[in-house]
């Protein structure tokens, strides 16, 4: 188990990787990280101020590392990871509220990894993030699934155990709510 080759690791399922990790193969976690980093990062980028995106992403994967041994596989790993991500994002905002830091970071404080983003784009991001944070959870979730994670509507329907029509309807209502939030 320990000497499983890199190419094999890249081909096996998440569940098999988790079993490998539980068996002491640390390479398995590296592969899980590589496989899911992009989706976690994209989701976090939509809801967390730019300066904290990498930090929060790291915290999510540290939480995965710490609790993966207790993952029983009742749900898909992706679903479990999504729940953990939402929890960590909520924790980020809870900490900010406790420290009485502003929930929306001023544009002047944003620096660093902003390649290709104009100040206008960053301002728009902050505005949209703030509006997204004010949406009910199910609305925010479907927007993140479709736009941040780029899942197709049929995939979202499968994940959320809804039919396709209900999924599209929820999406439209979510976008309407976001639009209203932006207009306020």
């Amino acid at each position, binding site marked *: 188990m320990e000497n499983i080759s890199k190419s094999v690791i890249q081909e096996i399922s998440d569940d098999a990787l988790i079993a490998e990790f539980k068996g002491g193969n640390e390479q398995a976690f590296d592969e899980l*990280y590589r496989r899911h980093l992009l989706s976690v990062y994209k989701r976090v980028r*939509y809801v967390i101020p730019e300066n904290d995106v990498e930090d929060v992403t790291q915290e999510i994967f540290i939480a995965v590392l710490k609790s993966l041994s207790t993952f029983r596989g009742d749900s898909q790993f992706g679903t479990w990871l999504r729940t953990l991500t939402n929890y960590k994002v909520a924790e980020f905002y809870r900490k900010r509220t406790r420290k009485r830091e502003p929930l929306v970071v001023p544009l002047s404080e944003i620096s660093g990894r902003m390649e290709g983003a104009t100040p206008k784009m960053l301002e728009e991001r902050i505005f949209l993030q703030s509006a997204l944070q004010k949406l009910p959870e199910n609305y925010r979730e479907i927007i993140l699934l479709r736009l941040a994670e780029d899942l197709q509507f049929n995939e979202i329907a499968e994940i959320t155990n809804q039919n396709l029509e209900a999924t599209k309807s929820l999406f439209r209502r979510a976008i309407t709510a976001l639009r209203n939030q932006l207009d306020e």
Partner: protein
Amino acid sequence: MSQLGKYPNSMQDDRLAEFTDQALAGRLNQTDADVDEELLALEETILRLKDAFPPAAALDQSTVKQMQVRFNARVRREAREVKQPFWKKWFKPQSHLQLGMAFAAAAFLITFAVFAPSMTTVGPSTSATALTPMKNTFVVIALAGVILIFLWIKRRK
């Protein structure tokens, strides 16, 4: 759910979903002119989201690698911190200067508390009576403690 639009809700659901698919696939960059105002506003919102968070700008391979390196470094650092006994963390040289100062102050107060009763005020002057051997030893130990803490704090600077 609004009934104000030109289309029934289910049709609006489909049109918005289709518009989103097209926009995210990069096949559409502007709103559809042939829709009612309500749907147009929703399409604009989709485009605003897409433009503010361009999918292609998320992460490239080299950034992914750099992030993994930084992540692994953080994991190792946190693992080292967890393995350290709590008392070692308290006495970590780079931090807890205030804790060191508090210890020094506490040691000083203890010394004073032991030493003070042996001081008597006679008229305008203060004189000290001889200490018992037991008290004497305690005072010496406390003073040595204060000096050691002072030296330790000074050495860290």
